């Protein structure tokens, strides 16, 4: 004999501490158990894809900051790579290395945020987040030195980067690089073996590799399911083919493994940074394209409008959240004819219902935290 209760619909969000922005999760509950989960999004929809059709290729770069605002570098990078593919531009060596360094710093900052907020979703009252912020702040300081902004960076340019790093940048970055391994060891100590975190996240929201692949999941979520797929390794861009690093892979595909994979990736990013700092060559940071002029201090002044040839290009990179792709169709004009963002946060949400049905409300929050969405990127 089973006792049936009435279904109970709870709206988690759009104003909720744990939806990481204005995102709404409509849970149908039986007691505490989830029987149905539905996503409602679009509260942050700014119609970037339409706006981008009205702006030149260069003017579109700031939009890419504002999709994934916790990882603006990778957004920039994917977009300029797509345009470069379209225009067939050869990027100077130093610019490639700089892009790699910035992308990896951004990955550490973004993963630190993801891990901290995930612990917060588990109920650790702000402490992990604040510890992670300590490191993230220093990385943001480095960004500020390099490009003058901390969050929406607008650093990459079509054909290179906006300007070379200042002289005092490298010593400060080296200092940070010396500090970080100890910090990461501390986080691994505190979080990975924490009995409560293990109890809360092991065996929750499990995705098998088949499911993860079929549901187009990418990034740490896919790797946590045991699929060793990393665009940096599979299709190296920037200077990733010249550095040595490993793909961090989980074994069980649960929330805990996503968290473990993120922590391991932060360490791999350090490895990449170490090699990049040693091996980065000197040289120009911007390709000479069309009427582009490079100022004596290294800043590239882009021409007002590029006109790539008619065609289409799809470039994808490994952003901290997964496979970030830009699909650009050109009709030969100064603005993209079609500008589409394949945003990992958005597509990683696809299996949310699959993961959360049968779990409890508390689990749903942790699962949502493990997807690590940025609503700016979900809604675009």
């Amino acid at each position, binding site marked *: 004999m089973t006792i049936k209760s009435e279904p109970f619909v709870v709206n988690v969000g759009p104003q909720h501490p744990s939806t990481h922005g204005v995102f709404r999760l409509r849970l149908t509950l039986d007691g505490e158990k989830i029987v149905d989960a539905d996503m409602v999004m679009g509260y942050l929809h700014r119609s970037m894809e339409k706006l981008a059709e*009205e702006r030149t290729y260069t003017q579109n770069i700031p939009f890419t900051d504002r999709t994934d605002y916790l990882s603006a570098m990778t957004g920039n990078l994917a977009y300029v790579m797509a345009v470069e593919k379209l225009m067939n531009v050869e990027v100077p060596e130093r610019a490639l290395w700089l892009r790699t360094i910035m992308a990896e710093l951004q990955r550490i900052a973004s993963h630190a945020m993801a891990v901290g907020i995930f612990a917060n979703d588990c109920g650790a009252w702000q402490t992990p987040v604040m510890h992670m912020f300590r490191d993230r702040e220093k990385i943001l300081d480095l960004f500020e030195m390099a490009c003058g902004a901390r969050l929406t960076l607008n650093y990459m340019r079509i054909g290179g980067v906006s300007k070379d790093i200042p002289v005092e940048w490298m010593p400060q970055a080296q200092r940070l690089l010396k500090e970080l391994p100890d910090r990461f060891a501390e986080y691994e100590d505190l979080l990975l073996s924490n009995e409560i975190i293990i109890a809360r996240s092991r065996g929750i929201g499990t995705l098998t590799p088949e499911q993860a692949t079929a549901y187009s999941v990418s990034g740490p979520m896919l790797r946590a399911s045991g699929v060793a797929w990393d665009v940096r390794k599979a299709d190296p861009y920037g200077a990733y083919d010249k550095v040595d690093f490993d793909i961090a892979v989980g074994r069980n595909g649960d929330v805990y493994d996503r968290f473990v994979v993120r922590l391991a990736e932060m360490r791999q990013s350090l490895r990449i940074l170490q090699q990049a700092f040693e091996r980065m060559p000197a040289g120009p940071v911007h390709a000479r394209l069309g009427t582009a002029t490079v100022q004596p201090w290294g800043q590239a002044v882009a021409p007002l409008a590029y006109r790539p040839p008619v065609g289409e290009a799809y470039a994808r990179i490994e952003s901290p959240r997964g496979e970030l792709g830009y699909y650009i169709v050109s009709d030969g004009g100064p603005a993209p004819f079609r500008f589409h963002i394949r945003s990992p946060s958005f597509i990683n949400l696809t299996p949310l219902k699959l993961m959360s049905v049968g779990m409890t409300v508390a689990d749903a929050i942790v699962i949502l935290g493990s997807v690590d969405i940025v609503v700016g990127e979900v809604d675009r």
Partner: protein
Amino acid sequence: MATRTKFLSGLDIAHRIEQRFPGAVDEALPEFAMIKPERLIETLTYLRDDEELGFKFLSSLTAVDRLEWFEVAYHLESFRLNQATAVKVRTFDRENPKVPSAVTVWQGAHLQEREAYDLMGIYFEGHPDLRRLFLWEGFAGFPLRKDYLNLPGGLNAGLERFPGEQGLDFSGRGTQ
């Protein structure tokens, strides 16, 4: 160590599809292969399940308004073989564009097809839950279509010139 993803050209893909399903390919370019809508699902299933192709991962699904027709682009990847390709399908019906849904092939198409329906107005037949995604129910029109609205300033979509470029007439601040 520098492996790179092998991009299978549209011509190659088209050739393979043509061998398996004669008449399924509409058009083939190096960048993509255009598939006829009525043969879409079996073709995509073939692309997914074939041993030498193995495109188990749907990287991106998006719709493009080409003014004369709508097309839906599928960017596919294979992890095992580290290769990628792109296929497309198009529909010339601007009033009521319909394309078969790929959800039965890749569940990952679920949200992306909803997005394409929401913003481009392409109806995916066979989609289990085709609703508006970002915009609310009852929103008039589909904003990503080129004929949706002219933007402020009177600049039409797909314009040839931009403010600041030489030769643009700024006297009238737009054409409307």
